[in-house]
């Protein structure tokens, strides 16, 4: 019979023994699973506050981007510290030196992206080897969302009040002055009426809305969370009602208003040639531009050409020195600008109606808002980012804090520690099994008997490695099932995880052999195994925030195999790394396993001491 098959016989016999021995199953399979479930539950539910530790974040500020400064401000309002760097290289040096926890690089193109109202992200650099370091901050440039628009509605109204209306009042004052100079009393009265109406356009309502909104925002600034405060700050800084500002700043539109009110408006009540229904609609026409309905504006636009003759008459009488051609040209300009004004009125009125509704909703919400709830509500609103299209508002900058394990918001803390759980499970099973079986067999004289059966130590160790592969396979299957079913952990590449787990398990056999060599009894062996597992668990920092460890422990972790095994499993479970990418850890685990296996085999004892 080929000696090469002896390891298989040893492995099969051991497997049979394990299957019949409850204590071994309990120690090597069940207990590790219980341990990892307890640890998993503990760390997935109870220790997430670890993520909330104050971070020191480096912000790389390319070209003095104003957005970088906004990010810095935002970070510092969120219990974090920001350090500004001019270059990524400088920031990386400090990251390596552990002076900062992560880097936010504000790319030069951010400003352009902001202007284009496109969603974009600021890149995150996080050290993946340390849990808390990966709790980085994601900074997202968001296109305005519906909810943010609602929050900004008051700005719209404020702009309307502070920007448009005073200018209209100014224009009408001029009109009044002109009317005073030579118009009939009726016209004067009409103009004064118009002026009064414009001045009182929803002013009270707007004021109350603005006041309510501002009160709410002040309360937020006074009592809100840092995130809420930051949001308000961002709104104040960046929200711009571009189109309205454009309207208020537009000289041609002001001219349109003048032309309309000066020449067209006085005649609108007596427009000949309009269909009867339209004339009826216009009968209720008001000079208050904000009260013109879109329908009325459309009728006015239709009616304007009918005013041409009267307008020419008026212009001719006002300017007798102008030629008919010049008068005609002026009339065309007036009609054209008035028509443009009506277009604007139509679109603005629709917008105003819409905004007014929103403002009302905001006001009601602010009145009933529970500040304590605002943060949560705001977060849920922001999660729907990108779903809305609000092109007429600029994007506010939104800064949110979330744990980014391995560069993905998909991962949670339990996802992060899951490779460590797997590594611990495999370590525990393989170590306890190897130590226990070797010491027990030695105590019972089985090893001596196997030796005189012409079985060499390498053959025997080969058999143990095969058994450990089997145990690790079972362990990985159980742990994978637990991970998926109990903790909803997403394993990116199951076959690769399986392979890496098996590979690592062989690496732990040598460690088990070494422990068994120095253990005389089962009690000693188990004590040594548990102690070793515990020490490695603490040093490697696979279950808790590594940053809490003293520097010496961090250094020590580099010499503990489970650190590399956990990294190797991360490569399969979370990153789906290629073999090339995982090569470093494969070599580390292989080297450690190889050395301990050789040492453990050479130091292997067939007989009891003494």
């Amino acid at each position, binding site marked *: *019979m080929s000696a090469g098959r*002896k390891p298989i016989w040893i492995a099969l*016999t051991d497997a049979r*023994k394990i299957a*019949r021995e409850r204590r071994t199953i309990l120690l090597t399979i069940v207990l590790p699973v219980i341990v990892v479930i307890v640890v998993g539950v503990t760390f997935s539910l109870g220790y997430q506050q670890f993520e909330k530790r104050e971070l020191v974040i480096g912000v790389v500020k390319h070209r003095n981007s104003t957005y970088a400064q906004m990010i810095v401000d935002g970070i510092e309002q969120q219990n974090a510290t920001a350090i500004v760097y001019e270059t990524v290289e400088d920031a990386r040096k400090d990251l390596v030196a552990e002076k900062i926890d992560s880097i936010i690089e504000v790319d030069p193109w951010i400003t352009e992206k902001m202007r284009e109202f496109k969603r974009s992200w600021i890149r995150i650099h996080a050290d993946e080897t340390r849990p808390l370091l990966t709790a980085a901050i994601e900074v997202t440039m968001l296109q305005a969302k519906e909810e943010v628009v609602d929050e900004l509605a008051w700005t719209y109204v404020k702009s309307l009040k502070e920007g448009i209306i005073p200018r209209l009042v100014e224009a009408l004052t001029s009109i009044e002055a002109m009317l005073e100079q030579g118009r009939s009393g009726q016209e004067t009265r009409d103009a004064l009426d118009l002026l009064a109406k414009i001045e009182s356009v929803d002013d009270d309502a707007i004021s109350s809305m603005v006041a309510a909104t501002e009160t709410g925002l002040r309360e937020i600034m006074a009592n809100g969370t840092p995130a809420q405060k930051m949001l308000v700050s961002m709104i104040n800084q960046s929200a711009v009602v571009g189109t309205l500002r454009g309207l208020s700043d537009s000289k041609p539109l002001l001219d349109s208003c003048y032309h309309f009110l000066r020449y067209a408006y006085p005649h609108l009540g007596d427009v000949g040639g309009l269909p009867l229904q339209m004339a009826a609609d216009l009968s209720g026409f008001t000079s208050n531009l904000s009260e013109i309905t879109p329908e009325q504006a459309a009728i006015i636009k239709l009616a304007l050409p009918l005013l041409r003759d009267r307008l020419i008459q008026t212009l001719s009488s006002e300017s007798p020195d102008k030629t008919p051609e010049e008068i005609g040209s002026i009339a065309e300009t007036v009609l054209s600008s008035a028509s443009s004004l009506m277009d604007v009125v139509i679109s603005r009125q629709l917008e105003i109606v819409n905004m007014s509704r929103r403002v009302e909703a905001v006001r009601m919400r602010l009145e009933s808002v529970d500040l304590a709830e605002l943060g949560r509500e705001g977060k849920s609103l922001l999660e729907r980012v990108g779903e809305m299209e609000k092109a007429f508002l600029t994007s506010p900058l939104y800064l949110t804090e979330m744990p980014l394990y391995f560069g993905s918001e998909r991962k949670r803390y339990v996802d992060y520690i899951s490779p460590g759980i797997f590594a611990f499970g495999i370590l525990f099973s393989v170590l306890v099994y190897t130590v226990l079986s070797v010491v027990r067999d030695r105590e019972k004289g*089985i090893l001596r*008997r196997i*030796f005189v059966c012409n079985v060499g130590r390498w053959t025997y160790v080969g058999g143990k490695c095969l058994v450990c592969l089997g145990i690790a396979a079972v362990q990985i299957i159980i742990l994978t099932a637990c991970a998926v079913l109990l903790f909803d952990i997403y394993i990116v590449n199951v076959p690769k995880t399986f392979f890496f787990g098996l590979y690592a398990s062989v690496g732990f056999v040598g460690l088990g052999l070494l422990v068994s060599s120095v253990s005389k009894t089962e009690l000693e062996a188990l004590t040594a195994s548990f102690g070793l597992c515990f020490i490695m668990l603490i040093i490697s920092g696979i279950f808790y925030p590594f940053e809490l460890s003293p520097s010496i422990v961090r250094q020590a972790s580099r010499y503990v195999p489970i650190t590399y095994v956990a990294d190797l499993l991360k490569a399969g479970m979370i990153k789906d790394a290629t073999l090339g990418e995982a090569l470093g850890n494969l070599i580390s685990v292989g080297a450690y396993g190889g050395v301990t296996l050789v040492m453990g085999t050479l130091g292997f004892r067939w007989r009891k001491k003494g």
Partner: protein
Amino acid sequence: MAEAQESEAAVSVVDLTVNFGKVQALSNINLEIKKGEIFGIVGTNGAGKSTLIDVLSGMVKPSSGRIRVLGLDPIRQAARLRRIIGVIPQETSVEERLSAEENLRYFGRLLDVPSGTLGEQVDRLIRFMGLLERKDDPVETYSVGMKKKVHFACSIVHSPQLIMVDEVTAGFDPRTKRDVEKLILKMNREQGLTCLLTTHDLLDASRLCDRLAVLHRGRVVSQGTWGAISSACRARLIVRGIPKVDEGRLTALVSPRKILPTLGGVQIEVDSRSEAFSLVGLLEAKGIQASSISFEVPPDEVFDVLTEDEGA
């Protein structure tokens, strides 16, 4: 000539010395065990019995000396040797979770028994050991004696020419001890196995072995048949059931020999078997009636005598 003698000898040990650091475990041992005989190594705990077996089975390298086991060097030809010897350790070392049959198959495979003959060999051994009815039960459910049978069977599953049994009867109750002795005799007689036994009990060895060697503090202090070994010691004539009236006459008759009381009678020290016979004739001639007269050499005393100088 020496080669021819070696081929007749199952075990040949010449000037064997084994040192463990500063401790001399075996010193200048010379032994020869013939094929087919049962040879006993007798000694107290720590005498070097297990070490001798370890050396003969190739587990321990000797410091000096020449050893041949079935014509092979136990160290240099260990693999070949282990295919033709069976080592039966003192403690019962079988896989208790497995059945007798599974144990035999497992160790048979490790001992390179061809798979074509393994099944037949296992069946034969199970019948030979009387384990047929419970061959499929886990060994952990067996009695101590049955476990010992499995233990023995596992060591001879590859049909060795020589077995080495360490502390053959240590720690057994009388019945189990008797069963084990019967088993060894059966293997020796029916299978022609050469047996090397170690024991600390000279009485057991005297009953079981064709020849034996007394090992004391790593040295062979005596070897040969029990008769030869015990001839160096004073023997006892045990006389039981003497009428009260004859007790005084007996004392006077055997004087100045030493008389010790024993259960139902007395023990009379004699120098030799022939002296004992002449003393029995004298008792008959003087009309002293006894219900039983027996002769024995107390093994403990033999051992004490043999190790007397060493122990001094």
